[in-house]
């Protein structure tokens, strides 16, 4: 009886698994590896000369390869995490990824209003990665279980929308070892994220304490001889306006405080920037933006490295 019960359960279960995987909208093969690559990021220690930090906009918007083509002497890493909210733990992580000795190494802080909202803390997945990184075996498991993640990726509202309502919508996501996740959406929709972001800013504004964490660490890092730069990670003009109006992100004030803490604010050229969903950079746009960022950085960095 037990055998029969277990076999039947397994048959029905695998039938459901197959049906779901056949029914759900296709994603690029590499998409499911994103989790594995984020997990791998947590193992980065003593590894880079130049790192760019931030949330999913940094994750998708900064290509270390493109930056290295302009700054060949700098081994570059993208430390972006999905739904990141700045915290001391994240700051410690950034510092940990720099190669010793840290003098003249470079940290670029990607400012985006959402990563500074304290009510988004419960959403911050970085905690999950921290917890998993505490145990090396867990890390190894995560790094090698990409195929499992792909097979059992949870159904999302996005999946249902794409399957039943927006049938021509497709995501392309490719994870790179440098930490960059190149992505694009077919068809592009510059207004897609607006309501979502409006809601974020209705619920909460920029948290001064989170900014203080950044300023405090910037001060400490510059004292150590690390060069700290700040950028406002670009987005679509529509969302840029919403963020300025609703989030309490006063760029001018933030820039002043950041510079007072020892950081250098950069304004790379973003005239060609395209956000496929209104928030995140299309992969070709990310490459151009990264080159432009590297060119800005080059003005302040030692050429003889």
């Amino acid at each position, binding site marked *: 009886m037990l055998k029969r019960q*277990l076999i*039947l359960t397994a048959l*029905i279960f695998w039938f459901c698994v197959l049906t779901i995987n056949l029914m759900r909208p296709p994603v690029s093969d590499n998409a499911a590896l994103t989790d594995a690559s984020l997990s791998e990021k947590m193992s980065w220690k003593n590894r880079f000369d130049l790192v760019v930090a931030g949330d999913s906009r940094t994750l998708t918007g900064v290509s270390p390869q493109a930056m290295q083509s302009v700054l060949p002497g700098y081994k570059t890493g993208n430390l972006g995490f999905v739904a990141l909210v700045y915290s001391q733990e994240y700051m410690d992580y950034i510092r940990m990824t720099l190669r010793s000795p840290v003098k003249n190494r470079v940290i670029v802080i990607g400012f985006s209003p959402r990563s500074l909202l304290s009510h988004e803390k419960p959403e911050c997945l970085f905690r999950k990665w921290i917890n998993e990184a505490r*145990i090396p*075996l867990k890390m190894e*498991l995560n790094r090698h279980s990409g195929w499992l993640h792909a097979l059992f990726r949870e159904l999302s509202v996005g999946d249902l929308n794409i399957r039943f309502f927006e049938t021509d919508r497709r995501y392309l996501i490719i994870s790179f070892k440098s930490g960059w996740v190149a992505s694009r959406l077919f068809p592009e929709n510059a207004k897609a994220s607006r309501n979502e972001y409006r809601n974020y800013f209705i619920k*909460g504004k920029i948290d001064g304490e989170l900014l203080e964490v950044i300023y405090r660490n910037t001060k400490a890092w510059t004292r150590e001889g690390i060069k700290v730069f700040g950028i406002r990670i670009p987005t679509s003009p529509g969302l840029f306006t919403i963020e300025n109006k609703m989030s309490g992100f006063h760029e001018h004030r933030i820039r002043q405080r950041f510079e007072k803490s020892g950081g250098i604010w950069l304004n790379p050229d973003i005239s060609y920037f395209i956000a496929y969903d209104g928030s995140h950079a299309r992969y070709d746009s990310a490459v151009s933006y990264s080159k432009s960022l590297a060119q800005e950085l080059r003005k302040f960095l030692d050429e003889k490295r």
Partner: protein
Amino acid sequence: MPFNSLIFLLFAALFFIVWPLVRHGNHFRWIFIIVASLVFYGWWDWRFIFLLTGCGLVNFYAGLFIQKFQRYKKTILILSIFGNLGTLALFKYLGFFTRNLNALGLDIPIITLALPIGISFYSFQGMSYVIDVYKRVVEPTNNFFHFFAYLSMFPHLIAGPIIRPSQLLPQLAEARKATDPELWEGFKLIVYGYFKKVVVADNLGLLVNVAFMQKETVESSPYWWVIITFFAIQIYCDFAGYSDIARGLAKLMGYEFPVNFNHPYVSRSLQEFWSRWHISLSTWFRDYVFFPLLQRRVTPLNAHISMGITLLLSGLWHGAGWTFVIWGGLHAAFFSIEQLTRWPKKLKKSGIGRILSTIIVLFLVWIAWVFFRAESLEQAVSILKVMLNPTLTGSCPMRRFTIIKAIVLFLAVASEIAVFLKMNEKIKNMKYYWILEIIFVAFALTAVFYLRGKVQTFVYFQF
């Protein structure tokens, strides 16, 4: 390692591969359970293994000494209880006490130690062993491995059920083999447990967390009623899910853990609620706190006072904060009113009355949950003000309530309504129920993988 992690699945797989090889010999079995449980526990923080071992040694020797030195048995009992409660106070309540003393005008440095996971559960289980030996309910075991396997057995170690020595020690003394129906029952319990935890509790938990994280209380009465309803379902499914997984794992090993939750939200009185909610803890408090207090003087007034003290302590057990104490106090007050007015008995007579009884119980339990979940007393009061003021009907900013959460909510509520209407009994008696059951289990398993919410730790781990 939490049950809802990939590493635990690997751990459990390894455990059950080795288990048939070691379960025959007593010492092999006990040592294997202990080693596995220490790995399971040490996965969070290896340093707490020493605390768990210390707790085991204190209670094991207290049991032995009580039997050996009968003249001093009361002193030994008091010392062991002092040791258990002292450790609990040190790790769990020191910060709370110092903060409150400082509020009274003292200037003591506030020391808050990291709370060892599961300490409230295993220290209570250890105490129940010593008290039962003292009362001669059980004979103390002479073998430390036997005792420590009972105390540290990983399925119940972190969040219960709190198992009495008379329930588990005799089972552990035998080489048991799970029968086929027990294995199926165990598998079923594990799947349903995961369903409750990762599908229902984790999906609703996200909405609840966001609501309570906000600095300003949302001025909408319906919104908070919905949120507290979600929380009530979340905490029930979270904890009952854990208990189901624990019971399922024990069944696969051939052991029987007591039922810890028995559909508490279908209760028609608070007395019934407490006989269905966290049964192992409420019976612990009943047997080791309420009865001894009551036996000192059996009068109606003392019964109310004893019940009040018991529920206040139960509140404090859940957390070092005034919100938890008030939660216990509210239950004590509701309970006393129920005993004085006997309203459930009066309503019991008609069908509508019985439904009304359940609605009243849910209303009272919901009100108390506000204190249980709130981040502070101020927040709890402001939420209650909004909830109880029907004129305030602002917007419900429920932006994360999606179709998937709606499905999950429907499944959770529908299953409880089925229990309330006693439909589950009818379904169980159907001719082809076994096929239906397989379909339920397979669908629940599929939902665990595809409708899971964002990973959250079990709520009761904090206790």
